[in-house]
């Protein structure tokens, strides 16, 4: 019988850990005795009674921990294994340590980051952003509810200090290949993007990736940056930064239509930069391309242009395949005469805007909770009228709830509700993959799609579903699996949001 003991001076291990570890080792090694006790006088007597009372043990103090093993094999080896497992456990805990600081000042005493992501309630966000800027840090301001006055003041400060203030309400940024908040897993490359829109920025990065291009940086600036009040301060600051960035050879700016005075300032700046600039103003007025400055009004058009400008040998497009058009024609033929209207239920705000822009050019009676025109405004966001394009990420739906990109289940009831309306012909859906988004946005929606279909079928109707998945093949959620699942449920899946909206609109156009 081999016996060995070890004393760990002033060591306090969690009792549960010690008990479970000694039981585990005893079982695995078949040792006749594995004991871990504090070296109190009483315990030292006890250990001596079972023949493990070595000098070390007898000299140990009451706050020391004693490990003792008696076995037929090598007792020392077993004791060392216990010590190692205890130490490994402690080291793992140390590695897992998450450092929490109460204030930025505390943090800056120990760390020197060059960028800070702020996601505090809006009431406090501007103050924290100001502190960060004053400390010379670039800021990604995820928070919303920052006033326009605060935004202007922060952006002026950032410009003075030649820093970036990305936001407020900035959900997407990719810096040197690292995605912050909502971002897609896209190939790295030499196209740098400035986006005054969240899902618009995501869509352009994804489409560039799909066309064989790559992203150097993608900088969100917040949806109000190109309003007259802010004057495009940060869009222009980012454009200048990308002009200096060695990894970037083409600059893309993506935004909903800017204020006209701001648009002119951005165009003027684009003309002075050393790199080609593609300006995508969704639903913007058509303009002739100039030397080195290209104008687009659709996201996919802008993405293709950026790839072609960067690599002249690439010819790109997102033409709809004849297969998809055939499927669409077949689906359309199944509609009853009363089924006329499009119901687009979007999670992504900019994708929704793009769909609205496409729809209003083709269909009459278009309503949306995003619409600015009085005649297009939806009187009750909870009830669809005629052709309805809904942004379910709007504050009306998300007040006190997660955004539908994080938790798409808030859209499920609405899918079923639209199916109950006998005038619904097409339901259009978007799904966002990538960092920050739900782990399985399609999977969580399939039951609602099936239920909607069943409701329609019970009433002798057929529903056309069209979907767009914003994501690449490299996402943490599998793009292929998501697409397959939708197609197995007879949902038409397209390669761009523009295609999805165009297809859905065309089906309705025919029946209207």
């Amino acid at each position: 019988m081999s016996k060995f003991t070890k004393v760990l001076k002033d060591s306090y291990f969690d009792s549960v850990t010690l008990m479970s570890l000694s039981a585990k080792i005893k079982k695995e090694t078949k040792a006749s005795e594995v004991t871990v006790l504090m070296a109190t006088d009483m315990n030292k007597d006890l250990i001596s009674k079972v023949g493990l009372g070595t000098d070390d043990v007898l000299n140990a103090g009451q706050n020391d921990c004693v490990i003792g093993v008696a076995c037929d094999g090598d007792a020392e080896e077993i004791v060392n294994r216990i010590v190692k497992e205890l130490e490994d456990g402690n080291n793992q805990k140390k590695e897992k340590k998450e450092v929490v600081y109460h204030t930025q000042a505390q943090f800056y005493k120990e760390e020197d980051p060059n960028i800070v992501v702020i996601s505090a309630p809006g009431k406090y966000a501007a103050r924290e952003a100001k502190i960060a800027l004053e400390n010379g840090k670039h800021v990604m301001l995820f928070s919303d509810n920052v006033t326009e006055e605060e935004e202007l003041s922060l952006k002026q400060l950032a410009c003075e200090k030649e820093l970036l203030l990305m936001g407020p309400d900035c959900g997407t940024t990719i810096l040197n290949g690292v995605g912050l908040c909502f971002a897609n897993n896209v190939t790295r490359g030499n196209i740098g993007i400035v986006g005054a829109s969240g899902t618009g920025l995501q869509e352009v990065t994804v489409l560039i990736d799909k066309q064989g291009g790559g992203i150097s940086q993608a900088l969100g600036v917040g949806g109000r940056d190109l309003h007259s009040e802010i004057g495009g301060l940060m869009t222009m600051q980012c454009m200048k930064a990308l002009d200096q960035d060695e990894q970037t050879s083409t600059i893309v700016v993506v935004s909903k239509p800017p204020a006209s005075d701001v648009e002119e300032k951005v165009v003027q700046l684009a003309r002075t930069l050393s790199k080609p600039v593609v300006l995508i103003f969704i639903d913007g007025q058509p303009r002739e391309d100039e030397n080195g400055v290209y104008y687009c009004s659709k996201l996919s058009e802008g993405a293709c242009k950026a790839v072609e400008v960067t690599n002249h040998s690439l010819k790109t497009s997102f033409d709809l395949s004849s297969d998809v058009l055939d499927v669409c024609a077949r689906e359309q033929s199944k509609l009853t005469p009363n089924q006329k209207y499009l119901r687009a239920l979007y999670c992504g705000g900019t994708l929704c805007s793009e769909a609205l822009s496409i729809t209003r050019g083709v269909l009459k009676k278009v309503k949306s909770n995003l619409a600015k025109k009085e005649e297009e405004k939806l009187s009750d966001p909870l009830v669809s009228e005629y052709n309805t394009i809904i942004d379910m990420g709007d504050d009306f739906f998300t007040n006190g709830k997660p955004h539908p990109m994080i938790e798409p289940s808030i859209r499920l009831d609405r899918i079923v509700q639209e199916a109950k309306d006998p005038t619904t012909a097409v339901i259009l859906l978007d799904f966002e993959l990538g960092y920050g988004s739900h782990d399985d946005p399609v999977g969580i929606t399939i039951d609602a799609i099936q239920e909607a279909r069943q409701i329609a079928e019970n009433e002798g109707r057929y529903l056309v579903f069209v979907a767009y998945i914003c994501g690449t093949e490299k996402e943490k959620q599998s793009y292929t699996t998501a697409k397959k699942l939708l197609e197995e449920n007879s949902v038409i899946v397209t390669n761009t949001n523009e295609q999805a909206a165009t297809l859905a609109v065309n089906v309705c156009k025919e029946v209207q």
Partner: protein
Amino acid sequence: MISVDEYLLSDGRYQGIYHLHSGYKKVLNFVNENRAIVSVVNASISRGPARIQLDEDIDFLTTNKYEALRICERNLHISDEAIPYELWKAKSLKLSFHYDKVQCVIAYLGKRLQQQEQELFDSHSKVDQLIVETIKTNLKQGQLESLLGFGMGLTPLGDDCIFGYLFGMNLFDTSIPDIYSIAKEKTTLISSEFLYHMNQQRISDALYKLGKCLFVDEKNVDDYISEILHYGSSSGYGILLGLKNYLERRSQNV
């Protein structure tokens, strides 16, 4: 709001600068130059003597936010930051000894402890057998001092039993023996700190609830006993074993 045992602020033994003694998932123990122990516990641990209960369910193993502690007059500083707090006052529960009721509790605890023993102790381990036999024998004879520092655990099982035994005395008797003055030489610092407060008849919210649950309202007693039995590795078992033995000895004298 962070809750602090008022005693920490009024007793001179607890004044001063503390350094980290030992840390676990839900508890950090700090020690000062008087060898007094103060436990900073997360919100899932009950309020109790010498405890500072935080208002969030922090996992101390994954944060180093709490590295130092200072108690100075009535000010509390954690990691150099002055912390606002509310005061907690130790509970006191005094009950009348109803023989029939106590017999029911003894029988109930006996059943629950027997089940737990099979889970806890290895019948093939000579050490485990010796510990359990020695503790049971000494408890039956009321020899509390001989259990100090005896058995497995950071608070050795023998101390847990003493603690449970003294808790029983707290409920039904007017005075309890001074175990602490011997304990500080014979057992671990943390264990002796527990006994220090029990000696002064200062009990935690959890023990107060245990007393109420067993002897007064009996609501959810099964669930609560299960919760107690899972304290530490064997602490809950020890406390209940000590309490049962006290009740048995006290019954013999009625």
